[in-house]
Structure formats: C-alpha cells, structure tokens
C-alpha cells in the first residue's frame, strides 16, 4: 500500500461552453499527505474538487481515488472519502443528529458505530449541544461545522475540503486546524482548498498552486517557501541580532564568510546579510557570532513565508489573500 496515491488526477479538463475552467490539470496526493490547493478567485479550485468528488463530470481526464476510477465507479471510489464542497446545505428541517444518521447509513456504519462517531465528530466541531436543533436555523459558520462533522463521520481515509473554514470564527478556524492536524497521526490524506495561507503553512506538507485552471507550481511547502525567499539573484537576506554591540572587525569577518555577498549594518546590534551559500555556510555565520562572543539573539530569513510565495506566484494577478 505504501507509496500508493490517495488521489490521482491526470489531465483533468473542464469546459463550460467555450470557457475552460480547468485545463489539463495533474494532481497527485500520496497516502498520508496533506495537500493545500491555492489560487486566486476563479482559478478552478472548486471545479477541480467538484470533479474529484463527482459533483460535476470532467470534460476529459481521469480521476483515481485510492486507485478506483471515480467516474466509472463513484460509489466505490468515494467509499472511504469525506467531502465538504462549497458550504453544502442540508434539508432545513433536519437536525445534525438526523444528518449524521443519514450519512452513516449511506456509508454503511451500523447504529452503534454511527452513534459513537457522531458524538465524536459533533463534539470535535463543538456542535454536540445543537444536535437536535433544525439546521435551517443555524448560522453559516455553524452549518459549516456540521458539514465538517459529516465529512469526518466515517473516519475517512481521504478528506476533500473546499474552503472548510470559510465563515468560521477565529477560534473555530484554529480548532478545525487542530482537529485536521490530529488526523495526520492516523495516516489520513487531505486535499484542501483555501484562501487562508496559514492553513497551508500549518497543516500541509505539500501545496499546489493553480491559476486559470492550470498548475503554476507544486511541491513541498517548506522548500517552496525557501525558494521564494530567494531574491532574483538567487540569494536570501538573513538578519542577525545580537545582545552585545557589533564591532567593525566582526562585520568584516562576517563579510568574508563563504556565501556572503554583502553585509549591511542596520543598527549597533543588527546586521543584514545577503547570502547565497549552503546550509553549512549559513551555520558558519553563527560560528563567527560565537567567536566574537556577541550572544546571538536571533537569525531570520527575511521574506521566507507563504505569503511571499503566494504573492510571487500570482504576480500581476488580482490575488485574493485573506
């Protein structure tokens, strides 16, 4: 089973009339992997996730979930999948408890199993108290929580979420992130589209950026962030802060280190280093600080965050960053 793909999308294309919403898109989520799907409004994220979950028919392309073709056998392919696509609604008169019962029966959970799981997931999303109230009276955030609970009900191996925390309060967002993160221990796979970059940086190991229905970049979140921190010349800016004042001799020595292209003193205890060396070279910068006994307070790679990555990749676009 190891190394097998949880989700394998190949050559997915979806056209609406003459408009191509998703254009020959490839997407692979390994088992146990959490992948974030990023992109500006209208990039084709929801269209991709709707195709994967069988809500729309792709114009062309193949979608395998746990190795099963979801277009040929939707039922079997989604047997171990939980989905939340674009804030789904449920019959207004239904209560969360009735919804869980319905979903549980479709998935094939028996009564006891459904009762245990329903309580578990409704407690996780903080909706247990509301289990017998009609969903039609809930706020958007509450309905979103119930939808999440429903997706997690069958203890799914693969989870597909389209902006799952939209409409949630800050505490709710953090709690949902914790809940999803705890699933990592159980080797679950997640494909999540979101505009909240923190959700990607805190949960996802890999990220796929799409725009105009095409993949812009895909890969490991950490290394993509590292790459994005690099300036055009392929170097990064490192800021060093120390407890004691920096001497000119120290600055000179620092400038002489391998990989250092330039140094700029920002204050008596702070220096900016333009650097393009190996990790080893970077570690030796710290050695210099120790040699002068300046007591290192901090060393930060400037601009090394997911927002910079996102902005770089969507340059010239009207990006929507929350």
């Amino acid at each position, binding site marked *: 089973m190891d190394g097998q793909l949880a989700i394998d999308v190949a050559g997915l294309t979806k056209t609406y009339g003459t408009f191509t919403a998703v254009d020959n898109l490839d997407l692979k989520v390994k088992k146990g992997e959490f992948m974030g799907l990023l992109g500006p409004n209208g990039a084709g994220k929801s269209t991709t996730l709707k195709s994967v979950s*069988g809500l729309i*028919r792709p114009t062309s392309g193949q979608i395998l979930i746990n190795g099963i073709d979801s277009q040929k056998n939707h039922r079997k392919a989604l047997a171990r999948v939980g989905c939340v696509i674009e804030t789904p*609604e449920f019959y207004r008169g239904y209560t969360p408890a009735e919804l869980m019962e319905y979903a549980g029966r*479709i998935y094939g959970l028996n009564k006891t199993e459904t009762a245990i799981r329903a309580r578990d997931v409704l407690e996780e999303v903080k909706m247990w108290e509301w289990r017998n109230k009609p969903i039609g009276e809930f706020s958007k955030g509450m309905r979103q929580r119930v939808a999440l609970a429903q997706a997690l009900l069958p203890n799914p191996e693969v989870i597909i979420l389209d902006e799952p925390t939209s409409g949630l309060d800050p505490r709710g967002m953090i709690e949902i992130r914790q809940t999803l993160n705890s699933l990592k221990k159980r080797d679950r796979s997640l494909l999540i589209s979101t505009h909240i970059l923190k959700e990607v940086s805190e949960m996802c190991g890999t990220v796929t950026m799409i725009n105009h229905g095409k993949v812009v970049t895909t890969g490991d979140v950490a290394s993509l962030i590292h790459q994005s921190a690099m300036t055009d010349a392929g170097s990064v800016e490192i800021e060093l802060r120390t407890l004691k004042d920096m001497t000119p001799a120290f600055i000179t020595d620092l400038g002489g280190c391998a990989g250092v292209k330039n140094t700029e003193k920002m204050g008596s205890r702070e220096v900016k280093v333009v650097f393009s060396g190996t990790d080893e070279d970077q570690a030796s910068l710290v050695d210099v600080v120790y040699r002068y006994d300046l007591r290192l307070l901090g060393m930060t790679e400037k601009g090394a965050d997911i927002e910079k990555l996102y902005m770089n990749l969507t340059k010239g676009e009207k990006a929507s960053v929350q």
Partner: protein
Amino acid sequence: MIGRNKQANAGGTFNDYSDTDYSATDEEAHRSTEYQLPSSVNQMLTVTKATLKLFSKSYTFITLTALVLLIPLLVYAGLLDFVLGDDMSVYDPGDYAATLLGALPVFIALIPAAVMSKLIPSEFRDRTAYLSLALPQSRASFFFGKFLAGMLVQIFVFTLAYGVIALVTSLEIGSLDGGAVLLAFAITIIGGFAISATVYALSTFMKKGSALLLFLLFYMVIPAVMILIDANTVFSDIIGGFIDNAQYLPPIAGDVATFTLGTPYELMSPVYFYSMLVENSGITLFNYNSVLDMGVYAVWGAAFLLLGLYRFERREM
C-alpha cells in the same frame, strides 16, 4: 482533548440512539473504523426514508391528507344531496362512489405535480445535492430513492381517498363491489405513476420545478391537444376515433378509474370540458380495456423515469 465520560453520555440524548449507553473511549473513537458499503438498494431505501421524513415535516403532505378528509365533510354537509336530490336509494353504490371520485381527473394530475415537481430541482437550488451526491452512492439510487418516497406518499393519499369513499358509500347506499374498487385503485396508482414519472423527468430539466406548470400540462394542455386533433376531421379520418385511444394517455387514467366503478353524476374531467366546447367530439370512455391501459401507463412511466435518470446523471450544480 475529547472529553468523554459515562456521566455525560448518560445525560445526553442522541435521538433514537439515546438507549445506547455505550460510551466510546478515545482509542475506540479513533480506531480505524471497518465498515462495509451497503448495497445500492439499501442506500436507495435510506434516501427514500430521508425523503419521507422530509415529507412528514412539509405542508404538501398535510394539505393532501386534509383534502381527502374533505370528501366526507362535504358529503355530510349536504353537498351531494343538493346535486343528486334527497332520495339516495335510487343510486347504485358504484355510481355513487364514482360521483364521489368526480374530482379524480383533477387530482391524478395535481397530486403528482405537487409531490414530484420539486424533489430534484430543490436539491440543486438549496445546494443539498452538494452533500448527498458527494457521498458514496450512485446517482441512480438517489434518483430512484426520492421517486419511491414520492410514490409512497401518493399511494398513502390515494389509499386514504379510496378508503374514505368506500366507507361513505357503504354507510350511505350499500356495499361496493370489492373487485371494481381494487381495479379502479390500481388504475389510479399506475396512472399516477406514469404522470409522476413524467413530472419527475421533466423537473430534472427545470431550475425551480413549477408544480403549477406541470399540473396544467397534464390537466389542460395534453387533453386540449387531444380534442383538437379529434375535432379536426382530417385527422379523425386518418387515424379514426383518436379520442377512443385517449384512454391510453395517463392524464385520462382518472376518467378510466372512475368509470370502472360506475357512471358518475359529474366528472371534473378536462376531456369533457373540451368536448363541450368543440363540436364533433363526443367522447366515450366506456369501451376501454383497463388491463391494456395499465400496461401502457406502466411502460410510459418507465420510459420517462429512464429519461429523467439520463438527465439527472448529467446534471451539474
């Protein structure tokens, strides 16, 4: 993190699970659940049950039940005395029951339109399909599950209606021929099935699923077209007695069912209204073949169901 203890569980109720005093530990709740996907038929019945629950909370169901219960109310309020005269004893029980069923040609179009027209469109309009169709069930079982629920509601309403009519007739006139009642009931249900399937299929093409539009199609448009064809001598000469063939069309099932019981004093049949307007169109439904009619209705219904399924499987949100 997930606080779980016996006391909390004992106090809380979880619908019909409240009798489950089972309380999972964290490990249990987080173990890999092994479960088997139920059969498609099983899943279909789950959808049927969920839809029936929805009906039980809706006005459609209550209104239809109330309408049926209006029949004895009107009878005992003296409405029939006014129409038929005071001396009921001259009436044959079959004719009396047929008169009570006089509104059937309306209701056989109205009830399917009211029950079926919104089942599918509302799933898309209210976005509830985003949840249901992303579950591991085939669109076919979802489609048939909802249809079955709609049929069960109608069977309930029509059973109630025939029961009420049989009861009132036996109290007022005398006992009915059981075989004729059963046959009329079967024609009603199978004719209703054909109209339901047509409404359901057409609604898969619609955004809102207008019950009024679909009702008028069956109650007015189709019979009108039939009469016009019959009134046009050119057509009558070619196909000869087209109206005699009208019995095979589901909108006429209500008329056929009524005549199976007896001759009604008054029939709210669109075919009669129109034939009064158009010269040269005397309509008789006395020479009908109820078994053949039911066969045609069943095939008609099945064909439209398949059309609806074809469309539903391709419908996107």
